[in-house]
């Protein structure tokens, strides 16, 4: 164990985030429990995120320049900062930033315990930022727990609402089971490989997987544990209830930033492993079935939802399936760069679209008990054309229609899978995205083609409305620029591997 003080600079963004997160709470403590002005708290938190993003970039640039390599390792190789880390943490920071504004806009969170919300969200962000830079299974586990614990509390924070309590309990129990399985798997992997460092595990993985029954067991258990976290079918059953029960901005964080972080953790687990020359392809089949089932079940279940938030929850499950196809390519394909790049691009596109749609839900939530049904969007095209157009663009993008970014996300994932010869998986992906067209278009039908009066647009939810419009513009503009973005992601990732 050699410890170098300069290594602290690598994790400086996390310290910075933590300091920013405690400010509103501390002030509250010194004021006898009187809240700070919510807007000031919000500004502190945003400042924290911007600072963390800037620190990440400068630390990375500095270290990369000094070492001449495109990655830094710290704390005995437990932490690595490479292209994936930078992209992952940037997506997370941006998305969490958007969600902070949603927290401010949502009545449910702003009026009650706002500083606690800020504290927990930023601490969850620390967890996520740590997940994406972790290079060691133990660090991964601890950071996932940090993230999850903050989330359990965030969901339970609304004490009066029954659904929120139910959701918190469900998430706590099932999340706990998932974490336990994950830890159990890590223990077996350690038993088989003698190390928890991902790179070292990866070098031995294929050989151990064939020869060592404990290692095989551990790998499968770890996969299952991660599958809980990214809500792959059949480990998805918590997702819809939890997404529905949590306050909408919190759901936004869970559906985007948390998912991005968990996906990257899963990716890292496979990235260094040379599973592509396994002799048995049972493992590949297992993974492919997970992806295929996720896409089918997620999309089919989403068709039956009338509740807009639940529909988004199932759609988010389905999107996990698409992104997981990219993970499969990265782990079992010969060209892992294609998988990694398309995964990062997909996560980017998915996060933008999803944040926008959750922001729309916040626009309509008058109180904590508001349930937004799809039919409540009636006549929105007349009352608020900008919002209606924005939501339509987001939904078209989620459905994967060109030339939005959602289309290119799917296009890159499908091209990665076809290139690596996963034909039937691609076929399932294509078919299930046809199913998805049906439910993504239904809100558009309701908004534009049905007459009647739906919910009022909350005038005071200025930030949420701007986020809907902003992300809709982003979806189109980034879609047209997707080639540049993809190449940028590609160069920053491939050069660091």
């Amino acid at each position: 164990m050699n410890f170098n003080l300069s290594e602290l600079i690598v994790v400086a963004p996390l310290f910075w985030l933590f300091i920013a997160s405690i400010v509103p709470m501390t002030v509250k403590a010194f004021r006898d429990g009187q809240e700070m002005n919510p807007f000031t708290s919000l500004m502190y938190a945003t400042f924290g995120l911007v600072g963390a993003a800037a620190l990440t970039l400068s630390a990375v640039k500095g270290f990369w320049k000094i070492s001449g390599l495109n990655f830094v390792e710290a704390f005995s190789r437990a932490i690595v900062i490479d292209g994936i880390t930078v992209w992952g943490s940037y997506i997370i920071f941006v998305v969490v930033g958007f969600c902070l504004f949603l927290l401010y806009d949502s009545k449910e969170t702003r009026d009650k315990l706002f500083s606690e919300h800020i504290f927990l969200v930023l601490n969850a962000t620390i967890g996520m930022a740590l997940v994406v830079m972790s290079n060691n299974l133990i660090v991964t586990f601890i950071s996932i727990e940090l993230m999850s614990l903050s989330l359990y509390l965030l969901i339970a924070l609304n004490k009066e609402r029954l659904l929120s309590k139910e959701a918190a309990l469900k998430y706590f129990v099932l999340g706990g089971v998932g974490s336990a399985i994950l830890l159990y798997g890590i223990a077996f992997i350690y038993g088989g490989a003698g190390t928890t460092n991902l790179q070292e595990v990866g070098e031995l993985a294929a050989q151990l997987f064939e020869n060592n029954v404990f290692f095989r067991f551990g790998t499968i258990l770890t996969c299952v544990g991660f599958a809980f976290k990214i809500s792959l079918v059949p480990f998805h059953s918590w997702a819809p209830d939890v997404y529905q029960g949590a306050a909408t901005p919190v759901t936004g964080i869970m559906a985007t930033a948390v998912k991005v972080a968990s996906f990257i953790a899963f990716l890292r687990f496979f990235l260094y492993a040379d599973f592509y020359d396994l002799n048995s392809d049972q493992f590949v089949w297992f993974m492919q079935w997970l992806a295929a089932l996720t896409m089918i079940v997620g999309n089919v279940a989403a068709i039956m939802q009338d509740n807009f938030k639940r529909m988004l929850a199932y759609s988010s499950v389905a999107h996990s399936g698409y992104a997981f196809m990219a993970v499969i390519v990265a782990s079992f394909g010969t060209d892992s760069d294609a998988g990694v790049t398309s995964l990062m691009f997909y996560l980017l596109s998915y996060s933008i679209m999803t944040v926008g749609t959750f922001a729309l839900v916040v626009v309509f939530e008058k109180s904590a008990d508001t349930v937004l049904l799809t039919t409540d969007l009636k006549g929105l095209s007349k009352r608020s054309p900008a919002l209606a157009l924005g939501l339509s663009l987001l939904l078209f993008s989620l459905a994967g229609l060109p030339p939005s970014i959602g289309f290119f996300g799917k296009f890159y994932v499908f091209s990665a899978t076809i290139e690596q010869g996963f034909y039937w998986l691609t076929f399932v992906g294509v078919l299930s995205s046809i199913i998805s067209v049906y439910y993504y278009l239904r809100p558009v039908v309701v908004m534009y083609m049905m007459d009647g009066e739906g919910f009022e647009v909350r005038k005071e939810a200025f930030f949420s409305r701007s986020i809907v419009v902003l992300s809709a513009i982003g979806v189109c503009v980034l879609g047209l620029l997707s080639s540049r973005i993809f190449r940028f992601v590609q160069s920053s990732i491939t050069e660091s591997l």
Partner: protein
Amino acid sequence: MLLSSLIFLPLLFVVLVAIAPSWLAKPITLVSTIMHFLFSLMLFKHFDPNTAALQLVEKSPWLKELGVSYFIGVDGISFWLIILTTFLTPVVVAASWSTINKQVKAFHISVLVLEAAMIGSFVAFDTILFYVFFELSLIPMYFIVGIWGGENRIYATMKFFIYTMVGSLLMLAGIIYLIFQCDVQLGELSASVLDFYRLDLTFVGGTFMSPQNILFFVFCLAFAIKVPMFPFHTWLPDAHVQAPTGGSMILAGVMLKMGTYGFLRFVLPMFPEAVAVWTPLFMGLGVVGIIYGALVAMVQVDMKKLVAYSSVSHMGYVILGLFTMNLYGLQGSLFQMLAHGISTGALFMLVGVIYERTHSRKIADYGGLAKALPIYAICFLIVTFSSIAVPMTNGFVGEFLILFGTWQAAPVYAGFAVLGVILGAAYMLWMVKKVFFGEDGEVIKKYPSMPDMNLRELLTMAPLIVLIFWMGLFPGVFLKYSNKSMENLVQNKEEYRIKLQSFRTTELPEIGDRREF
């Protein structure tokens, strides 16, 4: 830059319409689409009909990492379809002048976006670019049917959208496969359709699972749904009946042609062995479509539905002609596409004209209309003649060429297809008789002083009628432009290539040279 400006000018007009006050939306769109049409006539100046080469090429890389580029051009196959699109759009705008009264701006924006997407898909020579435009054209049509349509519009528009998506998403997967095949066989990722032509796709007779066979069916499905070919036609009557007049006109006039164009551009040249093997199936489905469409049209009580089923029947001819793979059949198909675009567009417009006055489309409600609306009756009769292929009208030329080609390729199919001509005459004339002659129908009693066609409607109708006769009397003028390209396709069906013609160069580089433009 001519073709690019053809695609993107409508999008510029969209901005104009969006910022203008809504009472100006109609005039602005009409004037700008007419100007766009006149602008598109510049193609005649720059297009050289004496070569099969790809002309007015523009190419620049787009998604470099997958070999996708912004690659557009025009050849004999797409030339007339582009003109047809730019010609029909102002007609559509004029025809929907009085029917579209709510959300006027949004309607005209949709029409303009649709025009851009349709032109884009006709000029795209990069498959992914084609796919993007092909899909993009769905969205405005979805809104046109869904917002301004009839009673059952939501069902119709969803059905239309999802049907088309099924085919095109599978095609996307096929395209991606072919892109990587380019890497394997030609050593470079490419999505250009010219490179796809050069691929040698394995075809094993007797088994379904050979790559060429699967790709053939994947592409066919996408286009067969769009055309629509016989078993996949069920979305069409719904969409047509529910769509507003303008929507039906675009749908029948241009959007269906995107399907047959897809056959001509992608399926026939790319999969020669599979085409040879499956020709009987497709010709058979074409004939079934002709007869089935005609028979179903016969029993319709709704005028619009009758016209919709007649579309199914006419598109059956196009499919039949395409799969003959001889010059007469292919030329006839292309001519039939144009003729059908004009005559069915005109029919839908005429049905819309009368519906506006009486709010009824039931054939049984009418009778004796010829006395009340003489000018309307004359127009309707002329268009009907075109639709049932009376000589001297454009419908005749197309169907005659197709039947001629089919007779050469497979006489049996020609024998059955001729039945369709007779049936077509039967149902159309039956409708004309019921609607225009005989006892006065209910609607005449209800609206005794119906106005005849007004000046706007006549002016909208006039170019269509002029074209019906012009194309019927001088088909050579029109066929001349596509002749070379079709000859090239027929003569080289095994090894199809298109050469590139860059500006003002006499020496034609082979596409294999990979010259940068």
